[in-house]
């Protein structure tokens, strides 16, 4: 009995401390697109995936944005409800299905801004909108939550989990996926070629050492007392300059963002369906 109580207190205490409120509703179906059961399923999925992605995941459907833009409306909704994984008004990602304009909008908050680049958000919108066009609002929302892990970048700007993303495969690697010089050495053919080349070089050096070399140079015979520099001029004439624009670091590192009225960093993107 006591153990259970302790466990409950600790878990809820932990969750409260982290700011993540799993008891809070994550699904707001104002446009009434989901059944009760679907809402429940989405809620469970959102809470489950929140732990994995370290983000508060929210699903919002609406028919009336009260005259606001999709950006402002979703910003305000997020801020007003103080969503956030690590604290209130913290990191999270919100999917808004806007039946007023038939648009899907993904809103990122705080750290989530860095986890998803603009192009990745666009890709996610594309994936989801196909469901929505077919009227499968539940399917689209579910898909949204499921693909979050795939698109999410860790600090290095690499996707944390390899899967088919945008049609091309990335190598599955849960640590940083850099290939360094040593990776190439694992291939026995490359190792052998490298070893052979170096050995051949060594052999050539040994052969070179079987002959004797000429060592006397001009300086051997130069009378240094008689050396004179009559003239030494280094005259600067002109400079030619070439300008080159440096590519900004690829937006893989994060997306564009703005500060919402509620003082929260928000990013995101959307498209019609």
């Amino acid at each position, binding site marked *: 009995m006591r153990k259970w109580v302790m466990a409950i207190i600790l878990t809820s205490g932990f969750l409260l401390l982290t700011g993540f409120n799993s008891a809070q509703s994550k699904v707001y179906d104002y446009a009434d697109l989901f059944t009760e059961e679907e809402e429940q399923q989405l809620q469970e999925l959102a809470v489950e995936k929140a732990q994995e992605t370290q983000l508060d995941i929210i699903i919002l459907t609406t028919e009336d944005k009260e005259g606001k833009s999709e950006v402002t409306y979703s910003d305000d909704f997020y801020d007003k409800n103080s969503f956030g994984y690590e604290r209130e008004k913290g990191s999270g990602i919100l999917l808004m299905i806007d039946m007023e304009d038939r648009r899907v909008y993904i809103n990122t908050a705080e750290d989530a801004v860095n986890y998803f680049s603009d192009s990745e958000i666009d890709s996610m919108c594309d994936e989801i909108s196909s469901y929505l066009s077919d009227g499968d609002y539940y399917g689209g929302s579910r898909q949204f939550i499921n693909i979050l892990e795939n698109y999410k970048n860790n600090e290095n700007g690499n996707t944390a989990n390899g899967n088919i993303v945008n049609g091309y495969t990335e190598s599955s690697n849960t640590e940083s996926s850099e290939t360094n010089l040593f990776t190439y050495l694992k291939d026995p053919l490359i190792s052998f070629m490298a070893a052979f080349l170096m050995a051949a070089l060594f052999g050539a050096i040994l052969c070179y050492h079987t002959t004797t070399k000429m060592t006397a140079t001009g300086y051997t015979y130069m009378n240094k007392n008689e050396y004179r520099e009559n003239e030494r001029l280094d*005259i600067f004439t002109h*400079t030619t300059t070439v*300008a080159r624009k440096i590519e*900004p670091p690829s937006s893989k590192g994060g997306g564009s963002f703005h500060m919402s009225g509620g003082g929260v960093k928000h990013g995101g993107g959307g498209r019609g369906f």
Partner: protein
Amino acid sequence: MVINYKCPSCGSFMEFDSSTQKMVCEHCGTTRTVREMDEADPSRKQDERDEQKQDFKTYSCPSCGAQILTDENTVATFCSFCGSPSLMEDRLTGEKSPAVVIPFKMNKERAMEIYRKWAGKGLLTPSGFLNMSTIEKFTGIYVPFWLYDYQAKAKVVAKCTRVRTTRAGDTEYIHTDHFDVIRDIDSEYVKVPADASEQMPDDVMDRMEPFNYQELTEFEMPYLSGYLAEKYNYTSDELSGRIEERVSQFIDRAVMDTIQGYVTVNVIDKNILLNCENAKYALFPVWLLKYRYRNKDYTFTINGQTGKFDGKLPISIGRLVACISITTSVLFLIFMLLGGIFG
């Protein structure tokens, strides 16, 4: 004619000993300095009359009377019958007298030691090379050289560049600074040697360099006793072409070395002027070892003063293949290991 130096004590022959740098009697061990032997030489008074004599003629050994077999370039040799050291005095006097000589600094034993050490070394040398090679000929010979003193001038005009980069915001600027560079130097090159013997290969003699000129001394005939010696085949004028090319390269290197710190150097104009001030006839000591290995003849040459040697070690194909194979295997294992750990 032919002279040789006789020991004042016992009448045997005096030879120049490289370890003591004196004349030593091979029989009783009496020593004299080179100068003393030279001054005691009675035939010196005949110098003027010998000048008119021709180069090629028969010489008889003053000890045994036999005819000394020699070619027109030899100036010091041994009588092929009785072995006494014989110097062709008339080929070494007057105009044909060398100005300077570097006496032998190391003797036959030392030279042999150097050879043995060299033949025994090397990863690729066939085993038994030292034992299986037979020494056909082992002679100490004074090789004729011309030593040139040259004045050299070089003027260079070049366009050079330096590169630096700056950054402003998101634009990188690569600046190339252009310079007009002018250099004008004078220098002197002294005692640049050119081997004046037709018989000795030039490239081998080049590798004997450098000789230590501190030990360059005025020529005196007794130094040659006990060694072979040649006189020059080519005059100093005939070799000047080769020497001038060499000195040109010296001054070119010297002037180009003064241009430092640039990324690119583009020479627009180069002017080199050489002036020969002096050419001296010198004799330099060389040990020549001709050996035979697997029915092929090789020559091992040692600088008789500094010990610098020239020779080509034979390469055993078997050993070379083994070496490369072993190295490949070891490196292969190391690479695979590294790949597994760090890859």
